[in-house]
């Protein structure tokens, strides 16, 4: 057990080093940070509108760049290893192929967490800098003087702890993206193929629930299309499981229970994806 943990730790550290020294993290993180830094340039709206805009802007930036990081880092790390045959020297060592995949996944998961943490801290910093201006505008626009309770309410709106739940849900979504990119990497012939296919799967995953609703509400949809949507629902991940984060941002729901569904969905999917990826890697001949 101890040697298994050492192997997983070693592979994770190797992956983290790879993503840091090959500049993959910085290539994605720097544009994301620059995007966030443009936040103060945007229009002065009313207090509520401005708060909502700031949340959407920061969360959207984290989400978009997070997806890119998860897909590119996984393809760069695993598909490249296979493409350049670095994997042969690793798999020649006394370790299981599932350990290789798991170690890689843990390393990429850690780097993604690091990126979210940095982006989250910068967002918090921007919120902090904007706070006096926002409160000033809230007080100026109020019809009567604000009571301590009003101030508390305004403060709560800006520093809503439920945003942490939303970030957690986003992280779970990114773990799922890492999972299916890892799975694709085991059969892909190049890292470019892995990146494009993963992006497609991610987009289909977002459209799935809409497609299902459309297929059930419109009578003229052919049986073939209905079946195609059903098959896609079984085979491809459904991103609507992570809509809890959007609900928190909209302010329509902020319970810790929102974690449960995406967490169990992510764990379940990661388990079968790792199993299938291991089987595919085991049956792959390395010529």
């Amino acid at each position, binding site marked *: 057990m101890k040697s298994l943990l050492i192997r997983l730790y*070693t592979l994770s550290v*190797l992956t983290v*080093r790879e993503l840091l020294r090959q500049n993959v993290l910085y290539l994605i993180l720097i544009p994301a940070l620059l995007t966030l830094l443009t936040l103060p340039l945007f229009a002065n709206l009313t207090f509520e509108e401005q708060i909502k805009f700031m949340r959407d802007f920061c969360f959207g930036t984290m989400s978009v760049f997070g997806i890119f990081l998860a897909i590119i880092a996984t393809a760069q790390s695993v598909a490249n290893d296979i493409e*350049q045959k670095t994997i042969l*020297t*690793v798999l020649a060592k*006394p*370790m299981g192929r599932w350990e290789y995949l798991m170690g890689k996944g843990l390393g990429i998961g850690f780097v993604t967490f690091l990126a979210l943490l940095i982006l989250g801290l910068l967002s918090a910093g921007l919120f902090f800098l904007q706070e006096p201006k926002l409160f000033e505008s809230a007080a100026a626009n109020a019809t009567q003087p604000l009571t301590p309770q009003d101030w508390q309410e305004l403060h709560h709106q800006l520093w809503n702890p439920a945003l942490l739940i939303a970030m957690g849900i986003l992280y779970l979504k990114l773990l799922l993206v890492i999972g299916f990119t890892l799975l694709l990497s085991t059969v892909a012939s190049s890292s470019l193929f892995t990146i494009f296919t993963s992006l497609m799967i991610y987009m289909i995953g977002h459209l799935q629930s809409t497609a299902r609703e459309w297929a059930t509400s419109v009578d003229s949809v052919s049986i073939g299309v209905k079946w195609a949507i059903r098959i896609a629902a079984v085979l491809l991940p459904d991103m609507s499981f992570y809509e809890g984060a959007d609900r928190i941002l909209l302010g329509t729901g902020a319970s810790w229970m929102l974690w449960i569904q995406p967490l169990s969905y992510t764990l379940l999917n990661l388990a079968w994806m790792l199993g299938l990826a291991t089987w595919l890697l085991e049956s792959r001949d390395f010529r």
Partner: protein
Amino acid sequence: MNDSLPLQMRNVQARYVLNWRRKSVLALDHLDLELKRGEIFALLGPNGSGKTTTFKLILGFLKPQQGTILIQGESAGTRKAREKVGYLPENPYFPKYLSGREVLETYGKLSGVSSDLLRRRIEIILEIAQMGAFAEKPLHTYSKGMIQRVSLGQALVHDPQLLLLDEPTTGLDPQGVDAMKEAMLRLRGMGKTILFTSHLMEQVETLADRAAILYQGKKLVEGSMKDLLGKTEGATIRVKGLSSEQLNGVKLALKDFGATSVEVSPAAGTLENLFRRYTE
């Protein structure tokens, strides 16, 4: 089957599937091979003869359609079997962002070597592979010869009994070749068994205890170097200071002694010697 032998291959057959219609090509045809402890065995043959396929079968990267492969009694491809094998690939690829020492540390930990033992072992390997001077530099600054030494180092890091060296001297300069040959002989002295491939026959002659020749996946011949070289016909006579007329006289004299064929060609200095003279 003898469990103490470093490698036993019995009746091994391997095919490569070419396309989705399952069309395949025979890569290895009923190969039998047995290696003894502490010997250097050369696997020879032209490109596509099945040498690298044999290595990949031993490592479990490919699965044989038929036959058995045992490494000290363990089935090839299993974790226990890989504990006993070290592999130096033909074109070694390592994470270029690591230094030579980091490669050894990483591969050692992946092989389950404890930290203390690994630290001591790395120092020995740095000395055997003669890579102490550049161990801390990142791999992307390494020459082909330096990468080859790192590759040998990572193959040795878990102290395996059997070493698979796929074209270990390809692309190396004469000094690099000498360093690799020296390391191989030293490892044999330490009781390691080495199975290697090479296109350079002269090298094989000086290094290997035994050899086998593969052709189109089939083993054509196998034996000790003494036996194999003894089987060749003819003898070489080196002559200096004779004119062409005198050489013709020698040819005629040899025919008078009963020689059925006599070939005379001018002797030339080797490029390798010339290179050494200028570079050493």
